[in-house]
């Protein structure tokens, strides 16, 4: 069984540009979660999508947005990039509704560098 996949592996952007990150969940999982892991800050919850809808978002500005497609894959968009957006962006999926109910499976992440 294939795990959660993310692309690209690395992404280098200039301040002010837009970044698009992609995630494909494990087959059969309908929920996708996005996290930001910046150095020294642990894992910060960004967004949760389930069945094509945004179910919850963390404490991030509106320039962080995304969507989920009918095949449950997901896209994270970061507009007007700032230097502090440099981080590892992790996607996770779960077969249970809601992160708190059980195991999440994480993808390898996209390393975003903003210069």
């Amino acid at each position, binding site marked *: 069984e294939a795990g959660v996949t993310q692309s690209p592996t690395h992404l280098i952007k200039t301040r002010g540009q837009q970044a698009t990150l992609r995630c494909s969940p494990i087959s059969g999982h309908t929920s996708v979660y996005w996290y930001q892991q910046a150095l020294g800050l642990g894992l910060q919850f960004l967004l949760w999508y389930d069945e094509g809808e945004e179910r919850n978002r963390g404490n991030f500005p509106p320039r962080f947005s995304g969507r989920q497609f009918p095949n449950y894959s997901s896209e994270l968009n970061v507009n007007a990039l700032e230097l502090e957006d440099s981080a590892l962006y992790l996607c996770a999926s779960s077969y249970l*509704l*809601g992160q*708190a*109910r059980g195991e999440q499976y*994480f993808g*390898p992440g996209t390393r975003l560098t903003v210069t």
Partner: protein
Amino acid sequence: GQQVMQIPQYQHVQEGEDFTTYCNSSTTLSNIQWYKQRPGGHPVFLIQLVKSGEVKKQKRLTFQFGEAKKNSSLHITATQTTDVGTYFCAGPQGYSTLTFGKGTMLLVSP
């Protein structure tokens, strides 16, 4: 909002020594999850504890959930170099959000 604190932030041990990381929540938790992230890798689920006072073991790893369901610990007996990584605890806010601690980074010297 809910806070999940982990201590220590970092620990360096000699192979064969024991290791413990502690997780404390500002609120009562319905459950707690533990994840491990190897250097350069992604978090991998280890276990979920649900019951007050619950203790679970996975080989050399022992997980405990406090009686008040506000704290938890992970103890590794006789560490090995393969135990290197960052260990995160995570507690739910409602059912839809997980709050992660900042993790404890474990270094094991051979």
